[in-house]
């Protein structure tokens, strides 16, 4: 609502596309490219790959954002190395952070941090399937004005990224603060684990003798395989990609209120098309 009490229509100010590899650059219809890993430290791309994609993105006249995951110390070291290379390249994009420690490093390097969706909790359980359910209206975002002020005062953050809730998303409490918001669609992250389910399956499939042991190691199965959980939470499709659980939760722009504009971050290039074509039910 504006001061006259009229409903304000939200508009999409810009579109970003999340890509997994360079070949997807041509598939992205957006003015900004997101590249990197937001859930798994073992999937942090090498400096050379990031620098190449960054250069090509800029050559195509597009903006660039680097996605970063929560990290343990050794992988935070890898992030620091990556940031150092980007500084040499005179990097002028955004760094999306999903870990407070990574945020601290990005700030030390003088880059522009954006708070990623893992640090901006919203209620996102696929089981809350009916927008009319009273519960859906009782659950919303898990952040408050003080959280945003903290990120802004301490780290100069002005953009925050979220994913759609299961019901209406009212951000009017934050409208006057002057910050920008991005919303991810159509894949929402439900949960993340360090005990990688993809790795566990890979061990089982290869009849590995280490099946059931130490799931912290990685054989990169997620580069070519994802998993559909059959009948897990109809009508949503629930899938496991790498070490995270996602569900199809496309943004209904009408359900977002309180903001005048958002950046739409389209994810799942390649994957959502596959999901459309697969069978709905697969019996064991």
């Amino acid at each position, binding site marked *: 609502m504006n001061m006259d009490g009229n409903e304000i229509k939200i508009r999409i100010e810009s579109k970003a596309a999340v890509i997994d590899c360079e070949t997807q650059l041509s598939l992205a219809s957006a003015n900004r490219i997101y590249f990197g890993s937001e859930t798994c430290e073992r999937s942090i791309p090498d400096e050379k790959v990031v620098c190449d994609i960054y250069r090509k993105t800029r050559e195509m006249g597009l903006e660039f954002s680097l996605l970063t995951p*929560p*990290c343990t*110390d*050794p992988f*935070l070291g890898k992030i620091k190395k990556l940031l150092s290379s980007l500084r040499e390249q005179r990097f002028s994009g955004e760094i999306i952070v999903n*870990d*407070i*420690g*990574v*945020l601290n490093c990005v700030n030390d390097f003088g880059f522009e941090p954006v708070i990623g969706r893992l640090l901006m909790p*919203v209620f996102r*359980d696929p*089981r*809350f*399937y009916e927008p009319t*359910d*009273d*519960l859906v209206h*009782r659950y*919303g*975002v*898990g*952040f*408050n*004005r*003080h*959280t945003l*002020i*903290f*990120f802004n005062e*301490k780290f100069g953050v002005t953009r925050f990224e979220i994913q759609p809730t299961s019901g209406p998303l009212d951000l009017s409490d934050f409208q006057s603060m002057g910050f920008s918001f991005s919303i991810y669609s159509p894949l929402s*992250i439900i*949960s*993340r*684990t*360090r*005990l990688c*389910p993809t790795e*566990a*399956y890979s*061990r*089982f499939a290869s009849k590995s003798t280490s099946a059931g*042991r130490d*799931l912290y190691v990685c054989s990169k199965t997620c580069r*070519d*395989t*994802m*998993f*559909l*959980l*059959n*009948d*897990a939470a109809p*009508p949503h499709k629930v899938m*496991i990609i790498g070490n995270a659980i996602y569900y199809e939760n496309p943004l209904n722009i009408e359900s977002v209120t309180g903001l005048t504009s958002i950046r739409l971050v389209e994810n799942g290039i390649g*994957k959502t*098309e*596959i999901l459309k074509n*697969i069978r709905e039910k*697969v019996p064991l």
Partner: protein
Amino acid sequence: MRINTGITSPKETKKLLRAGAECFYAGILSNRNRSAIGTIGINRRFSAQHNLASIDQARQIFEEVSAQGAKFFITVNSFYDNETFDQARELVENLAKNNIKSIIAADLGLLYFLNKNYPGEFEIQASTMSVIENNDTVNVLADLGVDRFVFPRHLRPEEMKSIIGHHDPSKFEVFIFGQRCFFEDGHCGFQHGSGPEYSFQLGRDLINGFFPMRSLLNMRKKYAEKYKTSPLGCNMLSDEFSCSPINILNGEQGAPETAARMKQGHRFILSCGLCALWDFREIGITSLKIPNRSEPTRIKIHQIKLVAEAVKHLKNIDSRNKYEVFCKDLYRRYLGESCNHSYCYYG
């Protein structure tokens, strides 16, 4: 090593102290807190049975445990929207008035508020929801006035060591025994209590007239009627569901398998981690937290005694291998089941 246990009633205080607990934590759920609960409640426990009912009860416990030289923390460890933030703020203001100035917190907005308005007054422990996986995170939280840190359940001892190396080890705490979810607490969006595994809990909460749980029951009923299946639980990686591998490059779908294959037997209840006490002693960790807020008194006592016995024998055993054998035997004696890697927190 100090054992930190959940407490849900002043009546438990003496019994838990006697069992060997030296630190306590509890949530407070007033009637008002029940009506607006944000994303995951004021302290991540919705039920009256898992919480103290008032500040008075908290003060009673605080006085009793302080007299014995033990510590007592109040959990204010959820993430808050603006409405529930006001409730959390009121709670910490009330705690300050009652001179109970030790809390467990996760919300950065709340930490920021406390740092601005009560600088240095509260002893603050960062909750597992803060997902402390690296040294930089500890530094940021310390700047916000956090004094103590609990490591997430999935961090291994060697990863903890690299963080602790930069700080005073006595500021860190680890989980031991009790509940260990497959998913990472601070990054999980599942709404606990709505899956089929929670039927018993649901029944108890309904008796209490606790509104959200009643709504959850309605939701489950409608869901089952519409889709002829029970809603997905946190136990989704189980034999109840199947998973199909899909080749991302060509869209080919593989044969379905039980989703339990993706979890490799990791279990929620009966999780252990006792053998890792040897490693924790080596890296200087002195505080052990049992996640047992939801357990009845007799289970809490059982768990404290088991961990206390494992701690006591650290002194008497001269190698890690022998200690592991001892802990496996202890586990079998206390729980009547053999130790298994799928129960292991840190294996």
